């Protein structure tokens, strides 16, 4: 499928070299002919004509300016004159030819063709599962970073050359092949491994809705089994994508709206979710309790404002909307104030003194900050939600100390990372919604007991020959192994590892928080959270038969032949 790239290069070289080659042939032909026609004199003074063969030999070394001298006899003056002329002509012809080759090597089209070819070859050689990310903007960067941090392989396409060049300079844990090209072009998607058998999923994150749509439809047509995740910023694009079976469509505003609703209804579950989906290495976040004792003010009635207003209305909370351009965004049904919200007058019109919450949700970070600071002066006890638009403003947004921050890129990157790396976490969250919030609170306190102040590690395990070879062999042989055994420390089996099995899925039946007696079997899928150390130890248990044996029975069997032999003799003597 990538032959056309190579053919292009060969074609390009041959076509460009046509003119220089013709020049060389012409110069050689005239020089050789001239030399063989001009009479010379041999050692005895007889008239002598250089044969065509000798003329070809002489011109060959003369033209490359090697010069062995006048062979076989000293030249006559007429011959010398001709040789001087053809010497300069041939040198110029060679310079022309080399110049063309060098120019070709530096040529943009040629370089691009080479780079594309190199990229395609590298992708063909990929053996481990990888995800194809289209678009390396703010979201793409965050997603690639967090995926590579978790040891997943990634391939990137971006239309902007600066962005693809910068990938190799970033401090990523894995080498990320990057193609500079339009991801909407099928050929580029193919080269990046859309139809590769190791391609595990494709993520369309470009800032162009049309391009995302094209990527999704191309992927579904060319590789129907592939997991397709798309970013969508508008309702009709979202519906369009869903119509042909896009697996996941990520709308940052709706996603945040969901978070807000969960925070209202089940604060502990929201806390638990934010811990479990958090970026590795970040600190555990504090619980938030959005207040209901008063009305909320929403500044900015764009896509974000609308999503928030819907959720607040569902919670039966009164909302004041402040919007500067209602003719563009549409008039909200709730109480409405015309203005930007950055000045005190508008906020007072929306009765800021009695308000419980404030959402600074315009698409301008400076305005959002200004809204928050003005509002806090008027009402210091406000619960504040702020929207962050630019990644660079992270520091000042954090400094203002809002209760919730909505950063679209981070929300999308986070959600997609979870979808790709630990999809069971979503299942866990939807099952947890049916439990009382006290259940979540208890679990949250258990999780915070596992890890001191950092976000817990989370991982999915399938009991199969690749991921858990020893456990798989043990279970296939009919052996018993429970969740409690899995959480034993392989260094000291009476110690319990700081980890919790959140979910076990067997034949489509999910078991939430299985107790320690639950038996495991081949094909079970586990979702485990805990500290990093716990995962290293569990990996030992499930990968090494002897560790597994010790964890299960407490007997440390000798492994080598000699020790087994000694042990056998000891036992015989005891008898």
């Amino acid at each position: 499928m990538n032959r056309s790239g190579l053919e292009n290069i060969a074609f390009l070289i041959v076509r460009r070299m046509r003119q220089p080659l013709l020049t060389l042939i012409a110069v050689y032909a005239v020089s050789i002919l001239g030399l063989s026609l001009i009479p010379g004199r041999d050692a005895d003074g007889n008239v002598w004509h250089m044969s065509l063969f000798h003329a070809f030999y002489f011109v060959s070394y003369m033209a490359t300016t090697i010069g062995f001298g006048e062979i076989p006899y000293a030249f006559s003056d007429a011959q010398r004159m001709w040789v001087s002329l053809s010497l300069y002509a041939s040198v110029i012809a060679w310079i022309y030819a080399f110049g063309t080759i060098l120019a070709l090597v530096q040529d943009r089209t040629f370089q691009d063709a080479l780079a594309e070819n190199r990229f395609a070859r590298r992708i063909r050689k990929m053996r481990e599962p990888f995800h194809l990310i289209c678009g390396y903007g703010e979201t793409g960067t965050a997603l690639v970073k967090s995926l590579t941090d978790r040891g997943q392989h990634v391939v990137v396409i971006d239309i902007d050359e600066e962005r693809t060049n910068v990938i190799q300079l970033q401090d990523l844990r894995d080498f990320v092949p990057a193609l500079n090209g339009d991801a909407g072009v099928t050929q580029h998607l193919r080269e990046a491994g859309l139809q590769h058998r190791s391609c595990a999923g494709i993520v369309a994150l470009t800032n162009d809705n049309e391009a995302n749509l094209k990527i999704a439809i191309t992927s579904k047509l060319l590789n129907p089994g592939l997991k397709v995740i798309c970013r969508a910023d508008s309702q009709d694009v979202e519906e369009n994508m869903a119509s042909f079976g896009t697996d996941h469509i990520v709308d940052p505003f709706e996603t945040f709206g969901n978070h807000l609703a969960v925070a209202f209804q089940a604060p502990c579950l929201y806390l638990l979710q934010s811990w479990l989906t958090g970026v590795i290495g970040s600190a555990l976040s504090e619980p938030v309790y959005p207040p209901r004792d008063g009305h909320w003010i929403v500044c900015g009635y764009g896509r974000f404002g609308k999503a928030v207003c819907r959720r607040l209305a569902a919670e039966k909370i009164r909302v004041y909307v402040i919007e500067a351009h209602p003719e563009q965004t549409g008039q909200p049904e709730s109480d409405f104030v015309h203005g930007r919200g950055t000045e005190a007058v508008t906020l007072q019109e929306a009765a800021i003194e009695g308000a419980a919450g404030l959402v600074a949700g315009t698409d301008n970070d400076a305005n959002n900050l200004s809204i928050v600071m003005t509002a806090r002066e008027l009402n210091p006890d406000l619960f504040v939600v702020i929207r962050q638009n630019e990644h660079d403003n992270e520091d000042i947004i954090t400094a203002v100390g809002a209760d919730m921050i909505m950063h679209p890129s981070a929300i999308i990157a986070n959600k997609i990372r979870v979808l790709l790396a630990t999809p069971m976490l979503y299942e866990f969250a939807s099952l947890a919604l049916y439990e009382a919030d006290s259940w979540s609170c208890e679990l949250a306190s258990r999780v915070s007991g596992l890890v001191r102040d950092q976000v817990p590690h989370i991982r999915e395990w399938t009991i199969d020959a690749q991921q858990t070879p020893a456990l798989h062999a043990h279970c296939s042989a009919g052996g018993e192994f429970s969740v409690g055994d899995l959480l034993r420390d392989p260094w000291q089996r009476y110690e319990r590892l700081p980890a919790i099995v959140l979910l076990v899925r067997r034949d489509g039946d999910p078991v939430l928080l299985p107790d320690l007696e639950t038996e495991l079997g081949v094909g079970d899928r586990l979702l485990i959270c805990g500290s990093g150390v716990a995962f290293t130890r569990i990996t030992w248990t499930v990968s090494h038969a002897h560790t597994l044996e010790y964890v299960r029975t407490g007997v440390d069997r000798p492994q080598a032949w000699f020790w087994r032999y000694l042990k056998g003799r000891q036992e015989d003597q005891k008898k």
Partner: protein
Amino acid sequence: MNPEKVVFGFFIVLALTLNFGFFVGDIENPDHHHLYELYAVVVVNLIATVLKFGDRSQMGALLLATSLVAMLQLLAAAIVWALAEHVYGAGLTPVVTASIVSLSGGAMLANVISVILLIIETVMLRR
């Protein structure tokens, strides 16, 4: 009128006519086959080959193939001549002459195919 086509057609036809000129005559008689004519055939064929570079069409590929065949035959003829005349010093004996001329005859056949292809292409273009 396309000047590129004129040059292209000129060299392909010239390659055939020169080749024919060298080929006709008594096959064993070196006097009927002038060396400079062989030289001209080689040079013109080289130029025709390079002119055919970089054409992606099916016809272009076929044209290039016939030229490469002709070049192979002609270079073989030139090497036979150089070996007989210079390396072994045997001169143009009837055997040597016959082999040089028959090699050039093979090249001529390839050149004939080239010209036929050129004519076919032109006819198809007219339609």
